[in-house]
Structure formats: C-alpha cells, structure tokens
C-alpha cells in the first residue's frame, strides 16, 4: 500500500483565543477526491491553508506529497495547485497574461492555451480579470490551479457565492478531473456537492472531525433513515414524539421537529394520530431522503447551514 499523498495528524491551530482547528486527522490517497464538509468557521479553510504551506500549525503534523509544508514550502508549491477563498488577481491583468505569468513560476508546466480551451475561456483571453463574471473568475482560478500539472489539487469552497447554474458547471469540471484520477482535497458547506463529487468526506465541526467515510458509508452509519421535518402549531415534548410507532429518533432543531424513520408512512400516520389526540396541529411537513445533513444533525444537534 503506497504512502498517502496527504497526511494530517492531530492538527491544531489557534488565532489568539480562537481555536480554529482543535484536532483534525485524516489522510488522502493518490487519485482520491476528498471533501471537508462543515459549516462556516469549522476550520476547513485553516486546515487546507496549513496543507498549502500558507499558515503554520500550532500542533500536530502534516505531510503533503511526502513533504513538510513548514520545511519544504518552496518545493511543495511546485507540487500543488490551489484555488483559494478570498483571493483575486489585479483587475487590469488579462486572462491569458495571468495564465502565462503563473505558468512561468513553475518548473513543470502545462500549455496555458490548452487550459484556456478546456475551461471555456478562449473568448475571454484578452479580457481584464476585473471584467470577468464570478463564474468565469472561478473557472480561471481552477485553470490556474492546473498550470503546473500538480500532484494534489486544493479547492477551497469552489462554488461558494456562485449561482446554481454556474455551480453545476464547476461540478462538471471537478468530475472531469476526478475521471482523470487527480487527487483533490476540497472544502464545502454544500451537502449536495460533497455527496456528488467526493469519494470520501470528513465532516468537520468546531475544529474537529466528527465523522469520516464515503458519503454512502456515512449515510448508512446514520441508519439510512428518512428524515421528516415538521412544524407544529404548539410545542410538544420530544419524548412524546420519540415514542411514536415507526419513529426511530426525534429532536427539536430551531423550532422544527426532526424525526428519523425507516418506515416513513407508519411514522407519519402515528404522528398525525398523536397530534389529533393532543389537539395540536401540523403546520408543515417535509420529507427528505437520507443525506449527509442527517449525519451532521445526528452528531451535533444542529443543521449544517447554521
């Protein structure tokens, strides 16, 4: 079994009094698409930036392509490609100029022309960076990440702030890279993204990994139960819902009652009966097929998009 291309052991990082990363460990094998899924402020970006050599950890160790980012930062940068969050290029730099400029920084490089074509930016080759749309800027960022034909790609929230259609374009690009057997570490707070794109996912909350596995494994671990979310006219006791026939688990999250069940029809019937008997009323009811959101709710009692 070859050494994993990314190795993170008990990583710790704080900013002043804020513990951004408390204890994060995971490893990624070559050719894998690995996702860090978690709400904003969970420590995903900090973890990735430590791996990229942009920040120094306060504890634990990381290895990327067999290198320690603290010691071999310069060499490491030739091996990785990244699209960062909160970054930009000078407004008056043209698309092709940006690609050429950055290509020039690397020992191993790919043809900027080819990347321009592949990322659908041919028509924009002479456009100033400042005049690109959000989606075009992101496509350029991904193209730039590939300039040095990197061994590992880091995509930090690659679709944040993009509208759904553009987001799907980015998904297609990442799926293509996945088919090319590129190793990718991506962060996201979109469940759909993690489920669709990642071979394995680490769910991160408050600087800790709370669950790790393939999306399917994680969902199965939560029992593969359907989630029913109901809003009621009057508050009820969790315990009462918990005891209903067909309901495996019930909890209240922000005024919504979240029930998990393996037998949805049975659970709904018993719920309605219970409410009638209680003189309570159903305001709304939504049914969700099992997703990573359920794993998160189960582990933290909160929603991912808090």
């Amino acid at each position, binding site marked *: 079994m070859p050494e994993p291309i990314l190795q993170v052991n008990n990583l710790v990082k704080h900013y002043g009094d804020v513990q951004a990363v408390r204890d994060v460990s995971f490893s990624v094998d070559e050719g894998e698409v690995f996702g860090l899924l978690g709400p904003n402020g969970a420590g995903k970006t900090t973890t990735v930036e430590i791996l*990229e*050599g*942009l*920040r120094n950890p306060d504890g634990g160790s990381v290895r990327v392509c067999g290198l320690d980012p603290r010691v071999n930062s*310069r060499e490491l*940068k*030739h091996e*990785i490609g*990244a699209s*960062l969050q*909160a*970054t*930009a*290029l*000078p407004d*008056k*730099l043209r698309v092709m*100029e940006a690609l050429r*400029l*950055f290509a*020039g*920084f*690397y020992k191993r490089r790919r043809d900027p022309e080819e990347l321009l074509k592949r990322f659908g930016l041919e028509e924009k080759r002479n456009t*100033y960076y400042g005049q690109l749309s959000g989606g075009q800027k992101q496509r350029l960022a991904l193209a730039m990440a590939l300039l040095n034909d990197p061994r590992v790609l880091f995509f930090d929230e690659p679709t944040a702030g993009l509208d759904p259609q553009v987001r799907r374009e980015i998904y297609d690009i990442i799926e293509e890279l996945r088919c090319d057997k590129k190793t990718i570490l991506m962060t996201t707070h979109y469940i759909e993204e993690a489920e669709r794109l990642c071979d394995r996912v680490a769910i991160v909350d408050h600087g800790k990994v709370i669950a790790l596995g393939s999306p399917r494994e994680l969902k199965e671990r939560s029992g593969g139960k359907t989630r029913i979310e109901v809003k009621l006219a009057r508050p009820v006791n969790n315990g009462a819902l918990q005891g209903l026939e067909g309901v495996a688990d019930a909890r209240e999250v922000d005024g919504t009652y979240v029930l998990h069940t393996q037998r949805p029809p049975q659970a709904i019937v018993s719920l309605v009966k219970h409410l009638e008997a209680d003189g309570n009323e159903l305001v709304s009811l939504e049914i969700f097929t099992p997703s990573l959101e359920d794993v998160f709710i189960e582990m933290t009692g909160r929603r991912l998009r808090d």
Partner: protein
Amino acid sequence: MNNFASLTRMRVQLAFRNRMFFFFVIAFPFAMFFLYAAVFAKGVPQTVGFYLGPVIAFNVMGSFWGLSATLVMFREQGILRRFHVAPVTSSDMLASSIVANYILTLPIVFLQLLFARVIFHVPSLGNPISLFILISVGIVSFGSLGLVVASVTSTMQETQVLNQLLWLPLIFLSGATFPLAYLPRLVQRFGLFLPATYLVNGLQQTILNSATPWSRYAEILSLACWAGLTFFLSAQLFRWEPEAAIPRRAKLLVAATAIPFLILGVVENRSDRILLEARSAFLSFTSPVSAPKSSGVDAPGRPPATGNPSKNDEK
C-alpha cells in the same frame, strides 16, 4: 530571477493600464516641473537650474506613495495570497516592486532634465555620473520606504494617513518645495535629520556646481545605506495575508531605519556643510555677486538682489 523578471514586467504593464498612474507618475510631476520652471523661476535659466534639483527630488520621493498603496491593495484584495500559493518569494515580490518603480520613474526624470536643458536653457546639468547615481539611489531608497509603509499598515486608509504624515515633512522641511536657506534656522536644523534633505542638496549641488560623486559621498552613502536597511526590513516584515497581524517588534524595527539619518543629522548639524551649501546655492541666483554668470543678463524673472533671502521668495 525568472519570477522576479516576470513580476516586474507585470507591474510595469499594470501601471500603464492604471489611470491613477498617469496622474501621479506622469501628469503631476510634469505639472510640478512646469510650475516651478515657468512660473516660480519665470523661465530664467539660472533660477530653473536652482529649482531643478528640488523638483526632481520631489518626483523621486513621490515613489513611495504608489509603491505602498499598490502593495497594501494587493494584500487587502487577496492578490498576494494567490502569489503566495505559487512558488513566489517575498523578495521576488518586493524587488519587482522596486525595479518596476525604477523603470517607470527614471524616464520621467530624464525627460524633465531634457526639458530643463532644451526648453528652459539651464546652463548645465552638472556631473552626469553623480546625477545618475543620486537619482537612482533616491528612487530605490524612497521606493523601499514605501515598502516599509506597506509592511506596518494594514488598510489603505492607514497607509494613506502614514504616507501623508511622512510626505509633508519630507517635502516642506527638506528644501524640496521651499529652498532650505529660506526656511527658519530651527527648521533647517531639523531638516538635516531627513533623508529628503540629502537628496535635494545632493541633486542641487550636482546640477549647480557639477559636484562629483566623490564630493557627494555623504548623500550617496547615507541614502544607499538607508535603501538597504529599509529593503531588508520590509522583507522581514512582509505579510502575504490581509489578516496577518503586524508583529510587535515591527514599530521598533521601523524606528531603526531612522538611525543613519539621526547620526548624519548630528554630524551635519555640527559641520553646517549642507546648510552653507544650500545657502550659497540660494544666493547664487538671488545675488549677482555670487552668480557672476548671470550678472550681465538682467533677466526679467530674476528677483532684486537685496542680500536678504527672505524678501526674495517667489512663492
């Protein structure tokens, strides 16, 4: 080396696409030049010659505004982060800033010297080697000052405040705008602690008296040392990330860059060399006795020679 060259190229390219650049680096310096040469000096060649050194020093010093603002903007917008994740070093980034600024400033200064000679018939531009060295060391040292400003400020607002705080004494107390000899004695003494004073005096002496590089060793060496010190410091304090804190030792280290001119200021205050030179330069165009070349030409723009410099201020 390769990274440095391509970054320099990018900076020059970006400057030409920036409207602010045209205003501050091209339009404004030429406006200053013509204001002094045509209005204040009334086109009199000797007087233009006297003001030429200060005007060039003024433009050379202006470098630090643009450099600090660009670097802070690059950091604030997350542009530096993008370079950081590529194999680009802080020295690549800083050295390319300095060299791009040099490439952009030198032609402007050259044109001003040319205009002074061709349009205003300044009798002599002095020793060309000394002139070139002083201009070069001036552009580099004040550029490095801009890099230091960028390293101790986090937002554009802070940068502009600090620039303003530095700029005003540099231009008003050094002889760059008002002749040093014309300023009150106490201000003159204070001026001897400012790097700007040495640049102004060095250029003025070179142009008026064709001073050799050797005779200007104090000016050249002090500015060169200062350039080295500020550049080294800005590399130490360089921050890629917008939210990275300014290290506590930064302010102390920045204060240390003042050391060369603190020492030089004490020495020059004792010897009075600079002040005497500035005074004789000032008298050379205000008094016909000390400026025999111009005595035969009663140019309309020349102020009456009363021997009292304060009455002769033309502003």
